[in-house]
């Protein structure tokens, strides 16, 4: 937690994540997606906006393998990417 010892200031309050905790990927089932995402980040100078497709694919992999609760992608903030994908198809 915050190491500031002054009583006047407010201390940091960690909040639990909205959707809970990710189950651990013990068998590395989505490791390839993660590697793709990391490579994309490194190539694009760690800009998240350019690698959102890869992050979407990683989360989809997790959802397929029961490593994450199934959620429509709009709820995860990928609404614009779905439209892009459907355009391609």
């Amino acid at each position, binding site marked *: 937690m915050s190491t500031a010892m002054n009583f006047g200031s407010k201390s940091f309050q960690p909040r639990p994540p909205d959707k809970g905790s990710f189950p651990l990927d*013990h068998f590395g089932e*989505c490791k390839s997606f993660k590697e793709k995402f990391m490579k994309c980040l490194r190539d694009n100078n760690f800009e998240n906006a350019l690698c959102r497709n890869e992050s979407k694919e990683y989360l989809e992999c997790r959802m397929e393998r029961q490593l994450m609760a199934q959620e429509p992608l709009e709820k995860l903030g990928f609404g614009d990417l779905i439209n892009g994908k459907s355009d391609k198809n």
Partner: protein
Amino acid sequence: MGGLWRPAWRHAVFCVWPWRHLGRPTRAAERSEPCLRPRSSGPAGTEQGLRRLGTWRRRARRQPARRPKSTNPYTRSQEEDWRRRNKTVLTYVAAAAVGMLGASYAAVPLYRLYCQTTGLGGSAVAGHASDQIENMVPVKDRIIKITFNADVHASLQWNFRPQQTEIYVVPGETALAFYKAKNPTDKPVIGISTYNVVPFEAGQYFNKIQCFCFEEQRLNPQEEVDMPVFFYIDPEFAEDPRMVNVDLITLSYTFFEAKEGHKLPVPGYNS
């Protein structure tokens, strides 16, 4: 005796009142402790003293309501008036004390409610629902650098580190980041983590959709796993005047070893 009739002495009189009628000298210790009063010594004396203790209590309880001091009807009604007023005052004071106690207990949930509605005090603002994620619009002109930090408690022998040193996001955009943890020992180890966000004021805009914190994570011997954090910065971050100069946010995770019966101070989220 003349002093008794002055209003300023009324409260002092009330304290002295029950003892006056007994006709004892005004010595405070002897007034309150009847066993200190002079009487015949010896076993009979102690028995008498004990009996007097019992009767004294009964007398004390009975007498303030029943026995006016004087026989003069005018003064008696006045005394009764005072007694009644004293009782009213006492009732009010007692009610105020109980009210204060109740208010101090009620203050905690009330304050929390107040903080939630007004968003003051850096506490969670109501309305951080998942539908907000659907509708939020990224603020493309405000780029924030997020750096990652990984710590491990001294007793935990994991190798825990972030897989990227930094990431550039904008408020309103969901982002994914990875940490990696390896258990180099030959025994399965269970860890539990918590996080910290610096600067503190930016921490209220940092929302984690899903992560690996606050839940026990078990790593088998020699196992290495990727730990993702899925988060976003609230778009209201761009509108907060206090955040105008904030371009760097550091997310710091710390892993502790989860032992039986050892409870992390987690915010009401149990595994």
